[in-house]
């Protein structure tokens, strides 16, 4: 309560200036950041001052024995005696039970205690602990309401982050803001257009996690509305480290990890394969059965097998080194950091190298003018393989993992393949044959200057430019079987993405007695440009010159040149009003104009308001000693979403070619033009309205603290490339239509359970619920989900009243048994088996009142066939489909524990998502119960002897598109709890440090992704085949597994 009194005293005090000794000083926080607005007063008096924005203060004291007390909320008071010194550098230590800390918000900073919106903070240590290449993975489980879905375990692959559910059917990724400026986070893309989004490198992987000071996640409208048209999906603010005043610091860390695949899928070996295949053919009535000798050999286990998964997976490793120099004085602070990361993925021929350097510089030119820069350059060099495709017609480019689990184990070992129609290429051939390299370089430069009109009024101007160049090179050697071969295939792609931003802001603050007003007014312009050139040539005489000699190719696919630009002009502002530090009000607004929308719909306004009431400041609570903080928050506001490609409102014509006779006995191609897009003069923003009610609380001097929030959101005018009737001549029409609704609860708790000098234990828990439902659509059941080409309408539907990501298909209803058929009535079991085995492909008649379900069609009226629920009309058709699962989790949580004992520290982090379903796309084939390579689950197939009710009999006719029914067999519960990280560290004590002339020496060993508790049958339960596509949540197609890694490292500070 001391701090509170101090503040009150200060607010009420009048400034009395005397003339004796003038003392100046600069106040820093523990991390070396300037700490503005600190109060400085002379002990025992009411005389004091407030340091300016940069923590610089000046005060006149009566004499040399005067004592100054510097205080700031969230920090321990610092006392100093003036003596002969007149210039002080004061470093504030955080109050270990930090009631308040500085939190970065949109276009500014705020004391955590003064927050009116819902904001989660993640600190430095939690970001680097996981050892992840990219920061997205580090966010999993760290903040309530933030759900991270790993797209792929490939080094550098992105993750899909959703903040408080799904706000849009058209991408629900948050806005990323680095050091105050929004960045472009569009995926680097894959060279192979056949690859799903999960297979590409995330631009965030270009940011070195070790450079990050903190990550703030803005969740409610009050916090996000200042980002207007891009705030609806939440905002992730990334702040990088800066230099500290004081002696220069050299910081070095290095770690090395070994990465391994946790599990392999149990597939058939050669002998099992031949037997199941033969049985499947027999049951289908096929005549091409294997000889008795071959069957006997298989039964005796004589055929050799290759474990193809072993062939494609390997032990990977990652080496990561950071060297970082920082320091500075009052006038200039610097940080120079360099990172070298070298990761070898757990799939052969996948790797990722990052070299990056950062210079962060802050300088005071004068009292009034300050300048600075955040300059970052990163170079990525990454080899990849196809890991997300599954198109059989893709020449030699199937997913390497699919190839490994689908290739029969005998291939390449016995000369049996082609005559049996199993013409495939092996995964090892694919590995040898395909080379795909990405080189990506990115500048992210931010230069700023501020002018201080007065201590209450400051102007800031920032220019930021981001330039990302991607060079992708692919060559496929001419070593594939003819059916899969393009006889040498070279593809190149060069992409340039630039984003230029200029932001100008005025910051102001003023106090009128008990009223305290501060805020920011600003304007920004953004200009985005994208340019791409792609070439593809195939048919090479040899594999020597690859893509360097396109002219020698016999086939030249047309080069593709694309270009896009878009612009955003914005005016924004925020006013914070604080009455007696008890009532807080924040008003925010942004007026955005985006080039992406139709001519007369480019502008929109996004307002938000929030109030907070610090109950703990009221006398009746203040008197309760155990309650140290109690704050109620309410906010409501609008934010928008403009994530569509440019030019969607315009009518477009596209060109192509068509062949005609050339009049001289040959044929030639003629250019054609045709309308390719319906214009939409009404195309505009989608708008999310969000209400948030929260309470922040702290007990026992904030030793135990937490936050609880309820939110509800409604998104209207959804931007959606709506499927329309083909009668229009177009398949899709970009429109604003429909609404989504989400609500949920978020809780985070943190406590210092043990807190002594020698032993401490901190435990943090967060959990959140929240799901998004569709509340209106112009028509029901627009197709969504995943479709390999044969699932009519896809695996999901958008249905009013159902969740986004509702799986839609048939419901299995057990297996047809002997007694279900007329012909098998009144027979002994032995006779039933004899009748069946006489001709396994014969069809029978269901008993009269049979109502357990239906097989896929009348040719499957056979014992052992899969039954599906029927609505009673006796036909298995569209009407029988229903919702058979949901992709959004019911609850997600994280548990973070840090224990220190003397010089040892022990960290543990667990995260989990419960209640979500995942479609195992790979199982469409691996559990088809047909004549191809499959999971060894098919050994449990129905047979007359093993007449189970779960798995159907093997049937070669199950192959292909037509018999396939998307059913709940492929929808799995993907709930999981993951032991995400365990770290054991040792900090060497002062004796050792002094001997080595170090100020810090830490060694650690850490395990990441150590264990996953889940029932999901694929590699990884939190996976997204199509990346951030909200229309196809929850699909896995044998995605690149996430490695278990064991990491060792040390950190040195000079």
């Amino acid at each position, binding site marked *: 309560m001391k701090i509170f009194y101090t503040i009150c005293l200060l607010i009420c005090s009048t400034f009395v200036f005397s003339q004796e000794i003038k003392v100046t000083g600069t106040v820093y926080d523990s991390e070396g950041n300037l700490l503005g607005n600190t109060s400085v007063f002379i002990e025992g008096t009411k005389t004091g001052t407030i340091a300016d924005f940069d923590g610089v203060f000046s005060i006149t004291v009566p004499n040399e024995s005067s004592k100054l007390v510097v205080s700031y909320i969230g920090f321990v008071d610092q006392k100093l005696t003036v003596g002969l010194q007149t210039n002080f550098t004061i470093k504030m230590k955080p109050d270990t039970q930090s009631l308040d800390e500085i939190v970065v918000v949109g276009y500014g900073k705020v004391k955590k205690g003064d927050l009116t919106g819902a904001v989660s903070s993640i600190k430095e240590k939690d970001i680097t602990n996981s050892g992840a290449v990219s920061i997205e993975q580090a966010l999993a489980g760290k903040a309530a309401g933030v759900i991270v879905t790993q797209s792929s375990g490939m080094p550098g692959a992105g993750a899909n982050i959703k903040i408080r559910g799904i706000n849009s059917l058209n991408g629900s990724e948050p806005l990323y803001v680095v050091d105050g400026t929004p960045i472009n986070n569009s995926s680097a893309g894959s060279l192979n257009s056949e690859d799903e989004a999960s297979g590409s490198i995330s631009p965030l992987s270009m940011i070195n996690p070790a450079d990050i000071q903190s990550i703030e996640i803005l969740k409610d409208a009050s916090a996000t509305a200042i980002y207007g048209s891009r705030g609806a999906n939440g905002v992730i603010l990334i702040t990088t480290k800066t230099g500290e005043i004081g002696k220069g610091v050299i910081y070095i860390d290095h770690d090395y990890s070994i990465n391994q695949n946790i599990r392999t899928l149990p597939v058939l070996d050669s002998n099992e394969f031949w037997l199941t295949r033969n049985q499947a053919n027999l049951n289908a009535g096929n005549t091409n059965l294997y000889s008795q000798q071959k069957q006997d050999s298989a039964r005796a286990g004589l055929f050799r097998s290759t474990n193809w998964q072993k062939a494609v997976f390997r032990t990977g490793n990652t080496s990561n080194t950071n060297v970082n120099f920082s320091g500075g004085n009052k006038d200039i602070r610097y940080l120079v950091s360099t990172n070298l990361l070298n990761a070898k993925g757990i799939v052969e021929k996948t790797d990722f190298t990052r070299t990056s350097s950062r210079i962060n510089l802050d300088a005071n030119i004068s009292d009034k003018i300050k300048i600075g820069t955040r300059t970052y350059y990163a170079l990525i060099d990454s080899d990849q393989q196809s890991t997300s495709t599954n198109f059989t017609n893709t020449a030699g480019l199937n997913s390497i993992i699919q190839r490994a689990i689908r290739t029969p184990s005998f291939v390449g070992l016995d000369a049996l393949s082609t005559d049996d129609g199993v013409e495939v290429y092996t995964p090892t051939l694919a590995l040898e044959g395909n080379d795909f390299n990405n080189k990506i370089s990115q500048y992210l430069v931010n230069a700023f200057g501020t002018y201080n*009109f007065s201590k209450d009024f400051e102007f800031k101007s920032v220019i930021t430019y981001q330039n990302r160049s991607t060079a992708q090179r692919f060559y496929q050697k001419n070593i594939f079987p003819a059916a899969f071969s393009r006889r040498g295939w070279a593809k190149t792609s060069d992409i340039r993405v630039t984003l230029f931003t200029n932001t100008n802001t005025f910051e102001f603050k003023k106090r009128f007695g008990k009223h305290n007003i501060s805020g920011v007014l600003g304007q920004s312009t953004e200009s985005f440009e994208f340019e791409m050139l792609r070439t593809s040539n195939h048919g090479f005489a040899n594999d020597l010159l690859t893509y360097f000699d396109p002219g020698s190719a*016999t086939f030249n696919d047309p080069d593709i040149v694309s270009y896009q630009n878009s612009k955003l002009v914005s005016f924004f502002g925020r006013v914070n009003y604080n009455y007696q530090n008890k009532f807080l009000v924040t008003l925010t607004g942004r007026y955005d104009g985006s080039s992406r929308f139709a001519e007369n719909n480019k502008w929109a306004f996004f307002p938000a308001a929030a109030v907070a009431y610090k109950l703990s400041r009221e006398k009746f609570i203040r008197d309760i000693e155990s309650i140290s903080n109690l704050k109620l928050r309410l906010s409501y506001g609008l934010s928008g979403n403009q994530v569509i490609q440019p030019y969607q409102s315009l009518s477009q014509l596209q060109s192509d070619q068509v062949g005609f006779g050339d009049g001289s006995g040959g044929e030639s191609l003629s250019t054609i033009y045709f309308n390719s897009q319906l214009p939409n003069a009404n195309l505009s923003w989608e708008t999310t309205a969000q209400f948030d009610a929260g309470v922040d609380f702290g007990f026992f001097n904030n030793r135990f603290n937490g936050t609880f929030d309820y939110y509800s959101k409604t998104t209207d005018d959804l931007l959606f490339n709506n499927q329309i009737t083909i009668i229009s001549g177009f398949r899709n029409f970009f429109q604003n239509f429909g609404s989504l609704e989400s609500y949920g609860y978020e809780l985070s708790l943190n406590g210092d359970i043990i807190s002594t000098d020698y032993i401490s234990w901190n435990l943090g828990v967060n959990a959140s619920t929240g799901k998004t439902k569709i509340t209106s659509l112009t028509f029901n059941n627009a197709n969504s989900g995943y479709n390999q080409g*044969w699932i*009519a309408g896809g695996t999901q539907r958008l249905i009013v009243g159902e969740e986004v990501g509702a799986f839609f298909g048939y419901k299995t209803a057990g297996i047809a048994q002997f007694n279900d058929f007329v012909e098998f009535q009144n027979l002994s079991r032995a006779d039933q088996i004899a009748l069946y085995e006489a001709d396994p492909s014969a069809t029978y008649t269901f008993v009269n009142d049979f109502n357990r379900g239906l097989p896929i069609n009348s040719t499957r009226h056979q014992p052992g066939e899969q039954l599906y629920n029927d609505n009673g009309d006796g036909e298995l058709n569209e009407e029988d489909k229903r919702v058979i699962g949901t992709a959004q989790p019911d609850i997600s949580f994280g548990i973070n524990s840090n224990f220190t004992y003397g010089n040892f520290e022990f960290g543990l982090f667990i995260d989990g998502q419960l209640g979500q379903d995942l479609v195992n796309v790979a199982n469409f084939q691996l559990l088809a119960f047909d004549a191809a390579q499959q999971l060894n689950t098919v050994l449990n197939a129905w047979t007359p002897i093993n007449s189970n009710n779960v798995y159907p009999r093997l049937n070669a006719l199950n192959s292909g598109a037509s018999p396939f029914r998307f059913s709940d067999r492929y929808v799995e519960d993907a709930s999981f709890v993951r032991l995400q990280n365990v770290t054991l560290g040792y900090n060497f004590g002062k004796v050792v440090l002094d001997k080595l002339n170090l100020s810090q020496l830490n060694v650690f060993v850490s395990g990441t992704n150590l264990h996953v508790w889940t029932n999901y049958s694929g590699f990884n339960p939190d996976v997204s085949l199509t990346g951030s596509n909200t229309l196809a949540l929850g699909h896995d197609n044998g995605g690149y597994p996430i490695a278990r890694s064991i990491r060792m490292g040390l950190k040195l500070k000079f």
Partner: protein
Amino acid sequence: MKTNKYKIMNIKNILGLLLLSIIAISCEDYLKEDPPTFISTTNFYKTASDARTACDGIYENFSDGSSNSTYGRFWPVIDLGTDDVTSRTQGNLYNDFLTHTVSSTNSWFENFGQFSNFWIGISRANNVIAYVPQIEMDEDEKNSIIGEARALRALYYYHLVRTYGNMPLVTEAVSTEADFNKPRSSVDEIYNQIIIPDLQYAETVCKDALHLGRITKWTAKVVLADVYLNRAGWRRTSQGVLVQGDPSNWALARDKAKEVIENSPHDLNTVALTNGQNITPAYGVAWSESSPFTKESMFELAAVPVEGFGSWLSRECSPAPFGTGYWGRAAGIRPFVAQGNNDRILDMRFPGRPPAQGSFIPTPDLYDAFEDGDERRDWSLMTKYITSGGKTYVSQPTFRKYVDINYFLGDEGTSFRNTNNNFIIYRFADALLIYAEAANEADGSPSLDAYNALNRIRNRAGLANVSGLSQDAFRALAWNERRVEFNAECKRRFDLIRTNQLVTETLNITLTWTAQQDSATDYKNSFSQFSGTQAWPDNEWLLPIPQSEIELNEINGWLQNKGY
């Protein structure tokens, strides 16, 4: 002092805000989209070249060279289950057609565009018809382009109504939702308001020339003759009612076909093509990769052997790249020992090794429909191929018209994605056979001209003249002549419907190849579930509207065709 300072700051504030508003004024221009990478309707349709390129765009939807192409890959499904065509492919979309379990979600419609392709074509045609008239250009050329667009629109609608029944009437360029939210109109309305007037317009304004891929007046006439022929015959409505056409159409068909026969520059190819030991009979010359657009061709789709512009039919048609099933399973069999060929079957497979897709393969029933000595039989139902150098390759029976022989022979650079075999939708032979059949009906008995027309077809195939037949006997012969002449040309199903033989002719289909059909052993396609003994169900006279379209057009009151 303090107050003064604040005044100054207020002025600064105001200046700042002024600055902001100046920036705002220039915003509208800043935010205007002016994409350099595509053309918009507003700056297109200005020149003769725009008119031509837009018109040529309409052709694409018959055969766009993509993996979903209509005449380049999927349309032959239409004849599956007739007595001509079956499928080897086990368990995929094709077998639903053979087993008569077609549903509205079959991927043939839903994923592979065999409904939507036609509508995209109609939309493109409507744009040309709407926007080209305003272009300042040579009037004849302009009218010819509009004529082509209307004929193509008619052709797309003609495919749709015969396949799916009632269709919405869309004749305007689409720009708003109201333009495409339409109820289904009756088949008769579509014929009378679109198909027939469009073709009548085209036959007056289109070019009078041999066909090179674009619609000529003669193309329009032969299509119109075919339309009349169909209008004279039977069909089932979307409500499942079997209706007979108006017999007055026989005379219209006869007269229109006669115009083509007598006045057009087209004629049958009558000279065989000899290349070393490889001989293409006169009948096959129209499909020879080396001679596209022969004088016989009246509507031909050019497949160009470049990825994206070729045909996939070579991949679809081949049951197996070798003949072990057909010539005998034992690997040691040598079928042409008598001809001095000692190769084993496995050594005689086509070197290009087309995948054993076998989506469309001929039935032995079709083989039997040919008279002995008919040159069309051994060429059309290919079981062996002799190269110019005398090397023999064998395969299971394969529709020769779908095969790009260079791909089968494994020529460098060929791929199943870009084979070079053109699809011919209308030929001069259509005019002859339409004339023969329609004249026999319209005149009550076969006239001399009718015999002449029929005998021109027979003579070209190496068969003798016929004469002295009754009306019934002539009709039966004309029907069979169409069957064998147009094998693999996607006409069988519609002929069986038109002549009300769909049930009778498909009830007992021979599916086992025997020694009588030049097979070494009895050979039957063991993959198909098709028995050849199923009665064609009433509902499948028409195919179902794709399920997604039914859902998207619920607001327009669309009902599914009866029986689905």
